[in-house]
């Protein structure tokens, strides 16, 4: 438990220092925890657990876009759980329930259950089509075709800087659209 959270903090520090691989590992490591907590929150609110992946993706986007509010001298887990809890409450409220989410939902050790390695979610996918064409193409190239920034730049004859800007704008506007719905 402690060890796991110390590892997260270390990975996040490296990520903030520019280590993209550490960031990738961190996001992979926190996702099962977020998924289990989202399922539990949905179950407690009497909602089907198949919407958990929407909430997981919502949390991941918020973690990404708000990571500058994390204080690198503080442990990462309390920050993460505060973001996750906020997003979970928001998601359940949008589904028409007033519920109380226990912070321990995230911190508890989880019973082992067969979990999918990854899962698709409807909400982000639906919003993809509302993005400007160039942003969508860049996002799909990197997300779906797992092309690098460099390859994507070559494919669309853009500079790498322009690809980075388009990618970031796409993520930011996806998040804004998810919030508005």
């Amino acid at each position, binding site marked *: 438990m402690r060890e796991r959270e110390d590892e997260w903090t270390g990975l996040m520090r490296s990520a903030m220092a520019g280590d993209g691989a550490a960031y*990738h590992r961190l996001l992979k490591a926190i996702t099962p925890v977020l998924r289990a907590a989202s399922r539990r929150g949905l179950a407690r609110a009497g909602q089907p657990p198949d919407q958990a992946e929407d909430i997981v993706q919502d949390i991941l986007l918020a973690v990404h876009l708000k990571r500058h*509010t994390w204080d690198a001298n503080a442990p990462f887990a309390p920050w993460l759980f505060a973001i996750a*809890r*906020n997003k979970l409450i928001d998601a359940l409220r949008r589904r028409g329930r007033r519920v109380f989410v226990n912070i321990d939902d995230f911190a508890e050790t989880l019973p082992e259950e067969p979990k999918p390695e990854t899962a698709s979610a409807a909400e982000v996918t639906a919003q993809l089509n509302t993005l400007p064409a160039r942003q969508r193409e860049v996002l799909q190239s990197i997300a779906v075709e797992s092309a690098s920034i460099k390859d994507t730049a070559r494919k669309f004859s853009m500079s790498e800087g322009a690809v980075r800007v388009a990618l970031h704008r796409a993520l930011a506007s996806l998040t804004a659209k998810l919030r508005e719905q």
Partner: protein
Amino acid sequence: MDTDQLIRTLAADNSYRPRPVGFVLALMLLAAAPVSLLMFFSMLGVRPDVMSAMHNPFFDLKFAVTLALAAAGIAASLHLSRPEVSLAGFGWLFVIPAGLLAAGIAGEAMMPQRLPMMTRLVGSNSRICMTAIPLMSLPLLAASIIGLRHGAPTRPTLAGAVAGLMSAGLAATFYASHCTDDSPLFVMTWYTLATALVTAIGALAGARFLRF
């Protein structure tokens, strides 16, 4: 899009470095301050006897109170822009302006007065005070809400209210140089009412705009 794909995309965007919230907030406030100052100089202006007023400790006390409120508001706003925190430990900052004001009231009560207490409390500028402080704080409040949207406040209503306190503190600092009512009793009554109004507006704006 499946979650692994999303994670890969987020990792690819790791090179993007958002600015710290404090930087964005400072930038927004610097942009809004001229608007409030323009309102101040076009409608009110500094009182004509300001040079002699500066020798009156109760005139100076007004600035200590309003600046302490603004500073507490800025510190607490930045603190609340982090998701995992509570106001605990930062709420006491607001005791400083209140304490300064209370000390001023006590100090004034011990001095011989030419005017009765109620006359000093009611003053002659209460209506201007109640109008000017909220009006001049609106640009600052709007700017601070925009700046704080860059943060991740998990208590948006509270964060908005604190932004309101900060904006009112700054606007009241401008206003204090115009107002000829220097009694701490006047400040306690009318400045506080004006500040409460701005705080309420801030809380509403926060609930609406500071969710993330």
